[in-house]
């Protein structure tokens, strides 16, 4: 008798596709995914499609309004705003795009580990995590940035470290939930090793939660990144970045608002896109999320 058994890869692929279909079928998911993909593609191709060099300063044309040659006008140094807006997301997406998976991975790993260990060690760890979370985010990041500088080699690990900490709590809670289920006890009773139980029973059920959490982390990291740039602790000029651009253009808002509006719309649309996608993803995976203030 020939038996076709579904290989693990097939099942995973089928599931990913069906989840994707579910996400796109919802209006929030469709819009969100479109925005995210749009921005990622833009970040990738923008260096080849921009009309000007982002550094090129033109002292003759400072703070001019939108016109044929400069679609969004020029900034206070005569640089083309449109060019800088198109390029403004690259650094942000690069940094957060790398830092988010790292944050979710390490936070998830530690969270699952301590969720399984339990007992005193777990309690002590949670105290330390709570202590960490009680400090203002800006302080934590600035300590590292001021010590080590503002290059992306500092920003990525910093963001990855600090944004991984809340993931520990979430992974731990999810682990507790799953471990209480009978199928985990059943696996234990069969005598499977701890690693096998983690890989086969625990992870597939915890990963969903982590994925949704990852999407949300990404949006908060972007917020933090642009806030840092805004405050002057992130990207260094003349690199174009939306947060930095808003900070620079703020002073001239009263008579030259386009310098602000461009990056505002770009940044907002990306973050909204990620949030909508995360929302639709959570619904598609059947996860209930309690909204908390961003940490």
């Amino acid at each position, binding site marked *: *008798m020939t*038996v*076709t*058994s*579904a290989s*693990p890869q097939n*099942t995973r692929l089928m599931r990913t596709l069906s989840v994707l279909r579910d996400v796109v079928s919802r209006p929030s998911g469709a819009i969100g995914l479109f925005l995210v993909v749009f921005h990622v593609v833009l970040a990738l191709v923008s260096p080849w499609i921009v009309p000007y060099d982002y550094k090129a300063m033109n002292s003759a044309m400072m703070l001019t309004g939108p016109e044929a040659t400069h679609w969004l006008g020029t900034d206070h140094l005569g640089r083309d705003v449109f060019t800088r807006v198109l390029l403004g997301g690259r650094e942000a997406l690069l940094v957060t795009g790398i830092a988010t998976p790292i944050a979710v991975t390490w936070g998830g790993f530690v969270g699952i580990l301590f969720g399984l260990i339990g007992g005193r060690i777990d309690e002590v760890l949670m105290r330390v995590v709570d202590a960490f979370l009680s400090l203002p985010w800006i302080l934590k990041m600035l300590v590292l940035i001021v010590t080590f500088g503002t290059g992306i080699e500092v920003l990525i690990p910093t963001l990855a470290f600090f944004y991984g900490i809340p993931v520990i709590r979430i992974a731990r809670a999810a682990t507790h939930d799953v471990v209480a*289920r*009978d*199928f985990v*006890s*059943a*696996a*234990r*009773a*069969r*005598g*499977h090793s701890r690693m*096998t139980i983690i890989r*086969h*029973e625990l992870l*597939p*059920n915890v990963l969903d939660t982590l994925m949704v959490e990852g999407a949300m982390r990404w949006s908060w990291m972007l917020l933090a990144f642009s806030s840092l740039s805004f405050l002057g602790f992130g990207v260094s000029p003349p690199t174009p970045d939306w947060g930095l651009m808003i900070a620079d253009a703020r002073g001239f808002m009263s008579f030259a608002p386009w310098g602000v509006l461009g990056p505002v719309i770009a940044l907002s649309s990306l973050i909204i896109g990620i949030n909508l996608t995360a929302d639709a993803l959570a619904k598609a995976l059947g996860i209930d999320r309690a909204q908390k203030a961003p940490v």
Partner: protein
Amino acid sequence: MTGPLIDIRNISVGFTGKSGATLPVLRNIDLKVNAGESIGIVGESGSGKSTLALAAMGYLKRGLRLMDGSVAFQGQDMFARTRTELEQIRGGELALIPQNSGQSLTPTLRIGAQLVEALRLHADVPEAQYSAKAIELLGQVRLPDPAAIMTRFPHELSGGQQQRAAIGMALAGEPTALLLDEPTTGLDVTTQAHILELLRDIARDRGMAMVYVSHDLGAIARVCDRVVVMYAGEVVLEGSTRQVLKTPIHPYARGLLASIPRLSDPRLPVALDGRPPAPGGAGQGCSFVDRCALAQDGCRTSRPDFERLPSGEAVRCFHYQEAHQLSLTGSGAIPASLDGASPSALHLDDLAISYRRPGLYDKVLGRDSAGVPTVDGIEITVAKGETLGLVGESGSGKSTILKAIAGLLPPSGGKITVAGGQALAPEVEHRSPDHLRKIQLIFQNPDDSLNPRQTIAQILEQPLKLYFGLTGDALHQRSAEILDRVRLGAHYLDRLPSQLSGGEKQRVAIARAFAAEPDLVLCDEVTSALDVSVQAAVLDLLNDLKATQGTTYVFVSHDLAVVRALSDRVAVLYQGRLCELGPSADVYAMPSHPYTEVLLGAVLEPDPDTAPTLSADDVVELSPPAQGCPFQRRCPRKIGRICDTDTPPWQQGVKDHTIKCHHSIADLAAAQAEGAAGQRA
């Protein structure tokens, strides 16, 4: 008032499915309930019985709509009333007693407040007397210390107490009709029996009509005058309780009755194969056609009408006249059992288990255990190939013992030995691969015991890979073979648990256990989460596997009839201590331990001519007493101080039937025979 109190005419209720089609949950239901009458609505999951009961109140769950027909209460259409009118009737003239009062009582309001609310809305009582009246109601539902209960929150009450409080709340408005939606599900046997007696008495004393929805035919037999049987959203049979339960004329009803295990019959019940159609899946013909032994071609193409017969019955079947050919009981197999002495497969040696580990305080004070153990003094030997049944109510420790044998919960005292006299390591992590393979555990709830993210193939592969190192084709081959043994086709391999029914999932769980080719299989309430007709199929399967594999079972259940059907020997547990142990036939007959007597007396058989005996209160005990007999606080045959202070000795009965009591077996036999005679008189 003339005319029926509740008049449901030809209602059809449905919802819009994903594809946009309307899927029916109820189809052309006619039901009349007269004043003072008790009607039972019987059905399994998916029959629509709860929807029908709620529709009688003019209420449909979110997403459902009334597609046809009308529901009238006291002559007025419930779906045409204004919201204010409905608010007046519901909880007043027409009251509901919900399925799970623990979840149906608002957690942030005290019991007293919720009762007073009901009084304020519906009772004709002056405000100053609300409290007094509420306490009176709690007394009428036989709650001890009503004044104290008034100040408690719902979660502080036991299941039985919560249910009584809900009944009290329903009575506040002096209803003319009560709707009860599975009110005793999840309650202990003795509690259930007491609550049903209460309901019977209340209905009779107040002349209330009752609509009792349940899957439990025993409860319905006790409480109802007429019975309505539902299947796949239709009423298929209606008649007096006697007619429906003793001589049903619909094949489904007959199949249902045949699949119920009975205390009086040692044979296995007969399974009803297949499962009910999903809403909208019934097709053109009779909804039962796929599972009916009398089905012919005509049954598939046209739907039978609901025909009223001169006998007072009504049936929806083309071939009801042949229905009596289908056996009601007794054609099931006699369970496979042993002959002659067999070596011991499992020996529990003075086993004690405690859930609470000694804490810091205890260690400081020099105590090496935290108080009274949850389970104590368990001494049982199970022979190879035998099935040992463990019965008891909640708190009896039966599941705890299984977990200890499985190694999930190490005992705090005593030890466990298996075949060949080898001691079993207390924790599963320290057991040898041989022991791990030979002892398998099957859980109660298949929704929880199968990983929702794994396919059936992956689920079955786990033990095969772990114990036999199978891979590739050999693995697939074996998986299909195992599925075949539990009567599931190989096409199930690619499915996820969510695509299977409850019965199918449990069969996969059984297949997974047997994949290891175990010597000992531990069954923890494996049929309790299943529908009645599916339960029989699982029992049949377990018996089959035992006959072919020679497996030893330890079978835990709170359902005495189910345990009787499968077990060779039975142990009765109370508060984690053994009361009685012996061959099933002996344990289920007199003489019995007083607790066994109480348990057996409280069982409700689906026979209106039988009545339960309630000899003890349904007080829920939270922990066993520190010394003496564990049953000392509730025993109707208590001798006196000796029961409180001295551990009762084992009294030897016939063969290896033992009872742990201060009474001698002869005394018990005499007293219990007298009691039985008194009942008959």
